[in-house]
C-alpha cells in the first residue's frame, strides 16, 4: 500500500525556506500570500490492511520521520 507522509514545520517555528519563497512570490506581485514549506515522504508498505499499515507507518513516523518538537504530520493513504 502506498502512504504519503506530509511533514510541515510547526506554526510557531520560523520557517526560513517558506519565508524566502514567500518574499519572491510577493516580489512577483502575489501580495498577501503566505507560504510554508515542508516535505512529502512517499512510502510503499507491504500489506493491504489499512489499519495495520497505518499502525506501522505511525511507528516509522514517530521513530524517525518527524520531530514533534518542531514539526507536524499528516498521512495520506492511496487506495
Amino acid at each position: 500500500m502506498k502512504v504519503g507522509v506530509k511533514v510541515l514545520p510547526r506554526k510557531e517555528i520560523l520557517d526560513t525556506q517558506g519565508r524566502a519563497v514567500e518574499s519572491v512570490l510577493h516580489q512577483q506581485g502575489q501580495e498577501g500570500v503566505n507560504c510554508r514549506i515542508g516535505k512529502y515522504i512517499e512510502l510503499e508498505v507491504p500489506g493491504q490492511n489499512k489499519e495495520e499499515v497505518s499502525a506501522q507507518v505511525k511507528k516509522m513516523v514517530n521513530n524517525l520521520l518527524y520531530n514533534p518538537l518542531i514539526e507536524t504530520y499528516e498521512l495520506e493513504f492511496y487506495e
Partner: protein
Amino acid sequence: MSKKVGILRFLGTNCDQDVWRAVENVELQPEWLWYQDHFSESDYCAFVLPGGFSYGDYLRCGAMAAKMPVMKSLSEAVNKGKPVLGICNGFQILCESGLLPGALIRNHNRHFIDEWVDLDLVSANKYWAGELNECSIPIAHGEGRYYVNEDELKKMEDNGQIWWRYRHNPNGSVSNIAGVMNHKKNVAALMPHPERAMFDWMGSQNGRIFFESLLR
C-alpha cells in the same frame, strides 16, 4: 582511571580528525568508535561526538545518526554517568536522540555562518571547560538555531542546564543559547567548535580548556 576518549564517527562526520588531535594534545587517548559499533562504557573516561554532516543532513540534521547502533551503547554510558561532549553536528545528533532537550533548526538569516563568536558561561560543566567564564571560538553551521518551547526553557534554566550563551546571537537561537546540558549534567553540547581553537596560530587556544578539564 582510563584515559581513553571514544570519538564517535558516522557517515558524513568530518571534524573527527580535529577532535582526535585535540584529545591527543591534552595527553588523553583518542579511540575511534564506528557508527555500527557496540562498546563497553567502562573502557572509556569520556565520549565526543564531532561535527560534520552525518547522512548529508538529510531528513533533519542528526536524525539518522541518532538511530545508529553506536548510540545505543552511548545511551547506556550516559545512564551510567559517563561524560559526553557534542560539537555542532554532534549537538544535533544528541538532541535528535533525546539525550538532550530541544532541536537545532535553520539559522534565522538562512545563511551558513562561519565566524568567531564570544561566549559567556551560564552554568559550568565539571567535565568540559570547567570554570572557564568566557571564551572566543569559531562557529560553522547552517542549522544552529537552538529551539525549545517556553516551558522546557524555563525548566532548563531552573535546573542550570544552559551551558553557554552567545554574546551576540548569530543565528536566532532561543535565549541566545550556544550550548546546553542534560538534566544530570553529564551530557553537554555546543554549536561552536572548541577543537578549532587549540593553539594561538589557530586564532586562540580557548578551546584547549574544554578538553584539559577532563583530566581534573
